[in-house]
């Protein structure tokens, strides 16, 4: 091992996202049909696309799926929307859920679509769809139909509540999944501190739910290819996923009838392990209100030793005696004075001032970074967590990298998205043998 590089250098070389394109892709040769809209279904297919599967995204002709028409405050757009509408743009709501995909258009309502879907499914490994339960069955392209065409097909339905049971007719969105599943009600500042329940800002139930669905698809493919040779049907309920995330809440309620409540920016299980306000803005002269706002920082000092150090730093040695044991300071009524003392100390400081003083004392901390601070941070840039992508359609795009790293067959972002119907010729020609004139005919008839 004399010549071996140190571990950090070794890891950096092994996981460098710039070398990803020199390595094979893990799902090469797998084909995924993504008949999805919004975020939950699309993101599941996108994760498989990042791993190298050939993902064919099938959208309604002309307008494409609804997410293309959502964007923050209706401001940022990427042009164009579709092959038919160069003057219209795709909203950023669509961004991030459809990496590395080929985009075709198809109107599922039409009888021709049924034949096309059946022929595509015969040649595919995975089908992902999130229409209302039973819709695809009515159109003759449900699991019962396509599994006959291709018994090896892994057919994934995703949606809010699932296709059976008392709530089966209910539609859902991410925010509703968070609300009904229970994560919304326990997040945010407590009522007696002036808080309300809070939504996780990302479409968490959808984007994370898509990951759960992708885990299940990969497990089903593993089982198919190494054990059984059979496809299967998967039903992922987004609300169910959220309920899975509630940690100790359900066992606690079930046995003792105690209802987990909101606890804001502190931690119910560890103290000190909470986010505090620093009294000063890091960018007092900025015209951007996001920057002009005061700073926040996570302070971690739950071990007795660290807590003692923290009390020294903030000049409150008395607290180290009053709350010497973790069992004392983690009590609900004792967390309040502890955090108040830290905030009082941080009142005349920026988050960077606080971080510097805590670093010096060997106390763990993490400033609350905004989108700019994350985007410009050398750590995230080096690791490719955020990266500039030379997108063949949209030019230079600043985008997130894949969620995890692999040494030998890394996931990667090849392109971020394309307009509706971009790959019609390529996909229908190659997979269904449609001629140029047939494609034109289908396009005129608005089947595609």
């Amino acid at each position, binding site marked *: 091992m004399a010549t071996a590089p140190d571990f950090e250098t070794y890891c950096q070389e092994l996981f460098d996202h710039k070398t990803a394109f020199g390595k094979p892709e893990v799902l090469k040769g797998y084909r995924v049909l993504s008949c999805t809209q919004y975020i939950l279904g699309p993101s599941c297919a996108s994760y498989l696309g990042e791993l190298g599967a050939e993902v064919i995204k099938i959208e309604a002709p002309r307008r494409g799926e609804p997410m293309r028409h959502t964007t923050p405050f209706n401001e940022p757009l990427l042009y164009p929307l579709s092959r038919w509408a160069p003057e219209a743009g795709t909203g950023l709501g669509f961004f991030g859920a459809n990496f590395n995909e080929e985009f075709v258009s198809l109107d599922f309502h039409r009888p021709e679509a049924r034949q096309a879907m059946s022929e595509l499914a015969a040649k595919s490994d995975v089908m992902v769809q999130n229409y209302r339960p039973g819709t695809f069955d009515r159109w003759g392209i449900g699991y019962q139909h396509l599994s006959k065409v291709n018994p090896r097909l892994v057919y994934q339905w995703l949606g809010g509540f699932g296709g059976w049971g008392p709530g089966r007719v209910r539609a859902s969105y991410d925010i509703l999944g968070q609300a009904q599943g229970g994560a*919304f009600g326990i997040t945010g500042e407590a009522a007696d501190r002036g808080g*309300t329940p809070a939504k996780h800002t990302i479409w968490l139930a959808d984007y994370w739910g898509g990951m759960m669905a992708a885990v299940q698809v990969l*497990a089903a493919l593993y089982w198919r290819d190494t054990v059984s040779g059979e496809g299967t049907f998967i039903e992922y309920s987004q609300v169910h996923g959220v309920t899975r995330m509630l940690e100790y809440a*359900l066992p606690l309620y079930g046995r003792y009838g105690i209802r987990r409540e909101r606890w804001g920016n502190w931690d119910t299980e560890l103290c000190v392990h909470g986010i505090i306000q620093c009294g000063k803005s890091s960018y007092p002269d900025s015209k951007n209100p996001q920057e002009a706002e005061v700073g926040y920082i996570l302070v971690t000092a739950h071990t007795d030793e660290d807590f003692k150090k923290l009390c020294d730093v903030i000049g409150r040695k008395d607290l180290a005696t009053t709350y010497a044991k973790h069992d004392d300071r983690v009590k609900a009524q004792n967390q309040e004075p502890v955090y108040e003392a830290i905030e009082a100390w941080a009142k005349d400081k920026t988050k960077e001032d606080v971080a510097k003083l805590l670093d010096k004392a060997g106390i763990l901390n993490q400033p*609350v970074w905004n989108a700019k601070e994350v985007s410009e941070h050398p750590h995230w840039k080096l690791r490719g*967590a955020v990266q500039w992508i030379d997108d063949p359609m949209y030019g230079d795009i600043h985008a997130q990298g894949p969620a*995890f790293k692999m040494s030998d067959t890394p996931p990667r972002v090849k392109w971020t998205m394309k307009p509706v119907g971009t790959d019609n010729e390529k996909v229908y020609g190659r997979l269904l043998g449609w001629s140029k004139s047939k494609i034109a005919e289908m396009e005129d008839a608005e089947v595609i």
Partner: protein
Amino acid sequence: MADTTFPKHKVLPWPAVPIPTPDEVYRGLTDQAKEYPLSLEAQLRQSDNFKKPENLTTVRVLDVSKGMIIGNWCSSMLSELGADTIKCEPPDGDPLRWLTPFGRKEYMFKDAETGEPIGLHFLHEMRNKQSITLDLEKEEGRELLKKLVVHFDVLIENYPPGQFDKWGIGYRQLKEINPRLVYAWVGQKGQWGPSKDKPGNLDPTAQASCGFVHGTGLPKEFGGRPTRSAMWMADQAGGTSTAMGILASLLYRDKVSGKGQFVEGTAAEAVIRILDYNWAWYGMDGSIRPRYGNWDLAINIYAVNPCKDGYFMVGGGHDRLWYRIWRTVGQTRADLEDEILDDKSLRVVVARLPHTKQVKTYTVLADWQKDHSRADAMRELLAQQVASGGVNYVDEVAEDPHFKYRGHVDQFEDRLYGKVLYGTTPFIQHKAPGRLKWIGRPLGYDNEEIYLKLLGLGGGDLAGLKKRGVV
């Protein structure tokens, strides 16, 4: 087992309200309308799980992570899908095992055999896992780990960056011993890079460092602050995404390469990945995503606002739903419906997105909501097929008829821990569904079985190891 002094209040049995029967659920439907949900139910109902095989029965996982939920969560993904999963803890236990909200020991459960307490957060993620102990601080412990990994397909660890490598049990060394091993490291920010993980970094470190906390909560003008998730949510996202990497590696090993590989999953990068358009927006014009509380920057109507008895969500991002929502409102408050329909500036979908338009929309909607309970509001909106529903508190989640009927929430009677209410696996599947086999194990409960089965160490050997503090 039961502590008779706690709790002092009367605890309702679960379910407090009986789970609806299929007859009640599908009452009033025509035979044709019943056919689809009943056929789905026949394929997916969870009471049939044990008649079916599991996806990952051929996979064996060793989880040596500690002190952070990301590793436990990652191995839960695999254990729920059938992997033979062993949680390997230090002799004094994974520190998470002893954590309990607000330090309340009375919340901890005790198992029937040893009477050892266990924190409920940890218990919830010990599902289908066996527990062994091993002291990796000791040379002898590390030698045992090298022998153990020969028998495993997957190793999950979260020690400080480089610690295992320094100890001679890192990826570089273990791949020589078992080239088929998929080695996964999990953490907050990574093993390399200028801000790499420090020992002790715990979620919400990842939440704060990735932009999530900054973007969550009400805007300052509405009295809000940047807000963390109540859960160690970034660990959950990181654990799930790392499980993707592990499964992809196994697939590649068994179909293509015959070799394992090194997977690195971080809580922060999983959340950066799912922070939708944050980075593209910043890249386009330097925009920093603001907090927007319980509304949405990109969709109107899509929000949680107060009702008479709590908070309530209404959603409808396109015209058809927009008009249905206002028709519903108009049934009891025609003035409010008129106010919206008369406003020319709200006629086009995208024109409703600017902030002032959202304020107008929700001011009017909340005026209707304030006289409605969550249940009434939902009944009226559902009649118009509008997605809506209350912000459920935990007791409401536990008693939701849909969740109970489908088994999203269930009570498991565990051989060791008695009746435990828990969030079930969302891996619902036709041929090989996920399931719960047991809820958890006390510390080192499976030492005898595992060390004998895998390493041939009998009672005498184990006693020696115990004496030397290795297990």
